[in-house]
């Protein structure tokens, strides 16, 4: 038990929470934006996977991690653009469209990996690059906080900045206002001259952007190569985090941190002989409970309204 607590209260643990939260948080912010526009993108897992693979391939061929990141982001946006074209233009059901993205990604990435590297499992034969870790001057010298906050991958800092950026975008900018109004009442938004399809398209592209950043972190930061199905459900955890966060930026951030912490805790909990398979289900159980409580409160409120 003592060793459990000492693991939990170490700076290493706090550092790893931020590290494992990064991909979840990035994808969750993407899910948040598209949900705010009233469009549920369940293709996050697939978009992350495609982003992860593209980052590795492009960085290997160009020799630059940054161009690799650009390639990853372009692939995520392209995939979302295809989804947007099908769902907004020729009216494919958005959920089925998301399933299609995930199906394409799970097999398609292996297909492409095999063509490029001759291997179906990992990209070890590709000389792919890794995005740099940043050591922040001054901050890194602060005791306790320094080792926790400094030395992370650049995408970890981007994910934290993105929380502020998305919060500001949704709350304070005209685009954010349009996204929220389209999501809450598309007819009303249409009647004041907002193009619903255009706003939903932008929201989908943004969700693809953030999901592919999360994917790029997996293969160019968290690990330094691509492996088959390497996102391992993080896209679904991101959707769970968004749902548990109640559709708010701060809520999504906190839920992502909690899920990141459980993920990081899995090792510490194994000291207590709690199987990691069961710990892995925690985010989903928490989300189901959260949704249930939310739905109960909501239906009670509706009933009360009817009573009056």
């Amino acid at each position, binding site marked *: 038990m003592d060793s459990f607590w000492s693991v939990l209260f170490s700076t290493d643990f706090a550092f790893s929470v931020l590290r494992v939260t990064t991909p979840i948080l990035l994808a969750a912010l993407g899910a948040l934006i598209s949900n705010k526009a009233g469009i549920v993108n369940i293709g996050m897992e697939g978009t992350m996977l495609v982003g992860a693979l593209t980052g590795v391939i492009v960085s290997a061929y160009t020799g630059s991690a940054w161009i690799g990141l650009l390639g990853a982001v372009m692939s995520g946006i392209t995939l979302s653009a295809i989804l947007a074209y099908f769902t907004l233009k020729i009216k494919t059901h958005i959920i089925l469209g998301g399933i299609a993205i995930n199906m394409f990604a799970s*097999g398609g990435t*292996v*297909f492409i990996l095999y063509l490029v590297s001759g291997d179906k499992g990992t990209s070890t034969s590709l000389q792919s690059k890794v995005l740099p870790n940043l050591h922040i001057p001054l901050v890194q010298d602060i005791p306790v906080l320094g080792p926790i906050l400094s030395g992370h991958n650049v995408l970890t800092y981007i994910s934290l900045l993105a929380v502020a950026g998305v919060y500001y975008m949704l709350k304070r900018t005209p685009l954010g206002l349009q996204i929220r109004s389209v999501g809450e009442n598309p007819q009303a938004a249409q009647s004041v001259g907002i193009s619903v399809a255009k706003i939903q398209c932008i929201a989908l592209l943004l969700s693809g952007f953030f999901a592919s950043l999360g994917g790029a972190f997996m293969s160019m930061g968290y690990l330094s190569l691509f492996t088959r199905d390497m996102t391992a459900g993080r896209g679904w955890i991101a959707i769970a985090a968004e749902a548990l966060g109640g559709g708010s930026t701060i809520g999504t951030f906190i839920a992502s941190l909690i899920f990141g912490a459980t993920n990081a805790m899995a090792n510490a909990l194994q000291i207590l002989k709690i199987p990691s398979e069961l710990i892995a289900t925690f985010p989903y159980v928490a989300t189901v409970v959260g949704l249930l409580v939310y739905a109960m409160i909501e239906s009670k409120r509706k009933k009360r309204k009817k009573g009056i």
Partner: protein
Amino acid sequence: MLKYFDAIRTLISIAIALVIAFLIITLVSDQPLETIRIFLTGPLSTTAQIGNVIEMAIPLMFTGLSVVLLFRSGLFNLGAEGLFYISGVVAAIIAIYASMNGFIHPVVAILAGSTVGALLSAIPGIMKAKWNAEVLVTSLMFNSILSGIGLYILNYHLRDAAAFANVSYKFQETARLANLIPGTRIHTGLILVLACIVATHYFMYHTRWGYELRMTGSNRAFAEFSGIKTGRVIITVHLIAGFLAGMGGSVEVLGMYTRFQWSDLPGYGLDGALVALLAKNNPLSVVGAALFLAYIRIGADQMSIMSDVPAELISIIQAIIILLISAEQFLKMWKNRQLLKEAEKLG
């Protein structure tokens, strides 16, 4: 022509997906024509291959039928995936640890798996019926939860340390499903699934219950207004759909394997959504849709064994089919033009 619009659109979607697949093969393969030939005719080459197609169609029919029921009642539930898996685990437990005679053993194992599937499926159903909790998200969460629990049971309670891979102890011989056609692995599960399909068809179109289900699916508020207890319909549909998905998982495990060996979700649940889509949510069409899907998969497997194109090409084909078939506006222009023509003829 217009009467067959849906069928034509489905065929055109499949054709486009196949053409794109051929293009990719041409780009990738050294012998494109030979590769395409293997892909298209491989599944018919031997009795064993034809058997493979039918074996693979069995679980697809189960999950497809399960998803048809849910989609038809207007519920976007993708939980068949997790239910299929966990029910397979339950059936495996009984196949390993219980001792019964040859006929009773698989029956008990399948019933146990199906019942667990039904009960677990009811949870998102009750949440939807009582508090209107979004069934899509809860069912997706349940997939991941059941995957973790199933893996835990496999690793901690069923795992055979003497085996080389991450697999369970061997099932008892009495638990395995009987073979139906010698020379293939087709098992009695085929009869079971066909019976389920016919029964579902009957219930959906010839009983009051089926009428209520379809009404709830087309407009829940209106159905409620006309006196249908939609909450009860939703829970019943979830129970039956979960039962079917669970039966599929149990049958697959007992019919095809001697040990439980899925260390991840096997994917048949989401494939069920594709089957339902191809079948236009019609129970009887599930047979053809599942056979088609199984056929192109076995073709892709053959292709990857005998040529230089990997089998994962199939997931690209599937993604394109899903995008096109579920697209409401796809070929609408053509339909409208046909409508105009017919109107001109009349007027």
